[in-house]
């Protein structure tokens, strides 16, 4: 049994994948916790879809695609903030507009490039963790170190800001700077995760581990730590699924993490659907939940 899991690691490309899987699982869960508590899941989706055109343009002009993607991600959040500030359009609509427009532009550009170059759109959309190069491992490690250092150093300020932005601003904290810093962290994390989960599914690795942990523990740093464990476990499992069954790594990782979420949803000691007192009645569980849904609407 162990043989089957350890044997692939003798290949160098599998070692590289393992390192990236651990790092990506870790930083996605940590940074994603901030998105979840601020109810900004959609922003994570918006940034991740918006990195594509930057990536494509960087490839065209021969620049580093990570830097291109990062710049595009940051520009998209600024565009969203600008539309919201200068027009009566609400934030969620602004996000929807910006990210679908960027995504369309990205797909178009990459399709054009694909005609004369060896670049596979699918790898960016759905991830290919088994194909990370040595420089990509270094870039991911560098980004991860930076993200973790910033989160640790600014933990108390970010906790205050994400819980009560007005109270933090009124206490004199530079909340605009904190907000911008948080956006940079999110963009960096998405860029670092692009190769392993792909831009379409990175949202799951950002939100689901934190949400799963949230069902189990009740303080932000605990959510981050448990979430990181869940994220790392999921991305390593996804990597093996990708290796053994020749699957794109993104969907494999996301299926694992979603499965863990369902388990927590059903069996969490404090919030679990099946562990709550009312589950004791003779009524079938499915029937009770269905009735509950109808009554609530």
């Amino acid at each position, binding site marked *: 049994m162990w043989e089957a899991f350890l044997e692939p690691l003798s290949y160098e490309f599998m070692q590289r994948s393992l390192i990236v899987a651990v790092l990506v699982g870790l930083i996605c869960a940590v940074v994603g916790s901030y998105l979840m*508590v601020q*109810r900004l899941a959609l922003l994570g989706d918006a940034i991740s879809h918006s990195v594509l055109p930057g990536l494509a343009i960087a490839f065209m002009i021969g620049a580093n695609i990570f830097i291109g993607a990062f710049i595009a991600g940051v520009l998209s959040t600024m565009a969203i903030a600008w539309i919201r500030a200068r027009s*009566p359009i609400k934030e969620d609509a602004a996000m929807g507009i910006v990210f679908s427009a960027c995504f369309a532009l990205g797909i178009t550009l990459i399709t054009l490039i694909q005609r004369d170059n060896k670049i596979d759109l699918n790898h960016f959309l759905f991830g290919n963790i088994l194909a990370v190069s040595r420089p990509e491992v270094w870039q991911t490690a560098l980004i991860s170190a930076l993200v973790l250092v910033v989160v640790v*150093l*600014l933990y*108390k*300020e970010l*906790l*205050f800001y*994400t*819980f*009560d932005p*007005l*109270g*933090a*601003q*009124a*206490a*004199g*904290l530079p909340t605009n700077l904190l907000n911008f810093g948080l956006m940079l962290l999110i963009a960096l994390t998405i860029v670092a995760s692009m190769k392993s989960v792909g831009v379409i599914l990175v949202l799951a690795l950002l939100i689901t581990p934190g949400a799963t942990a*949230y069902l189990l*523990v*009740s*303080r*932000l740093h*605990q*959510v981050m730590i448990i979430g990181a464990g869940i994220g790392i476990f999921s991305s390593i499992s996804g990597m093996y699924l990708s290796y053994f069954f020749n699957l794109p790594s993104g969907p494999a990782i996301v299926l694992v993490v979603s499965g863990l979420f369902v388990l927590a949803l059903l069996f969490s000691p404090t919030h679990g659907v099946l562990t709550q007192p009312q589950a004791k009645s003779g009524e079938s569980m499915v029937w009770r939940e269905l009735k509950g849904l109808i009554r609530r609407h």
Partner: protein
Amino acid sequence: MNPIALPFQANLVQQLNVSGQVEQTCMSSSASIAISQLSVRYRAVEALHNINLLIRPGRLVGIFGPNGAGKSTLLKAMLGLIPNASGSVTYHNKPLMQQLDKVAYVPQRSQIDWSYPATVWDVVMMGRVQKTDWFRRFSVISRRVAAAALERVGMEKYRDRPIGQLSGGQQQRVFLARALAQEPEIFCFDEPLAGIDQKTQEVVFEIFHELVAAGKFVLVVNHDLGETIAHFDDLILLNQSLVAYGSRQQVLTQENLYRAYGGRVLFAAGEAA
């Protein structure tokens, strides 16, 4: 907007400057919060119109007015929390916005996501963030200050409780403890009395009166003209522009209430004066 309102307000400020309560010792404008020509626009709508106020320490100040009168907006605009505000707010002759380390602001309870993964202790410690250097951990002193604040509001037993499991009154007391932990000179509370239990109300007013006696500024937005109004020393009566400002007795006249609330004045309010 309303040309008659202007001289009236100017008159009021002057009146407090020159002939205000005699028992107040700190009458110099430098030890006061001076608000002048404060206006707030939301796109085409003017939420606050040309507010001029001189607020003195050591008075429990209630900000009253009907829904949409701009009570919360006044508090937020004073602290620079609203981008579209014009006018000036000074404290010790310097812009208040540059001295926010002396301010504690407690937002409306309904503006906070109480399902946030944090414990009572986490929230009270937020009051010490501004007093702690960047990149540093909380000091022993900070922990002591926070613990004392939590004890003062009678919530020390709930220290490790997730905030989502508290009642509304308990949540309000935790926020009060956070404000105390900030050790500010100016306290601003937005609707702290909304939907709280009797016990919390007693604790809250007890602490308000202590702070006032210690010479702090305590500004409280309240929408309820009920019996709690008797706790306040001074009232600011708003309806987009300033209707009246002064001691409770001065402000609570039928004429002022009519101008602020239109015909919808609660009769009990008039009697509370």
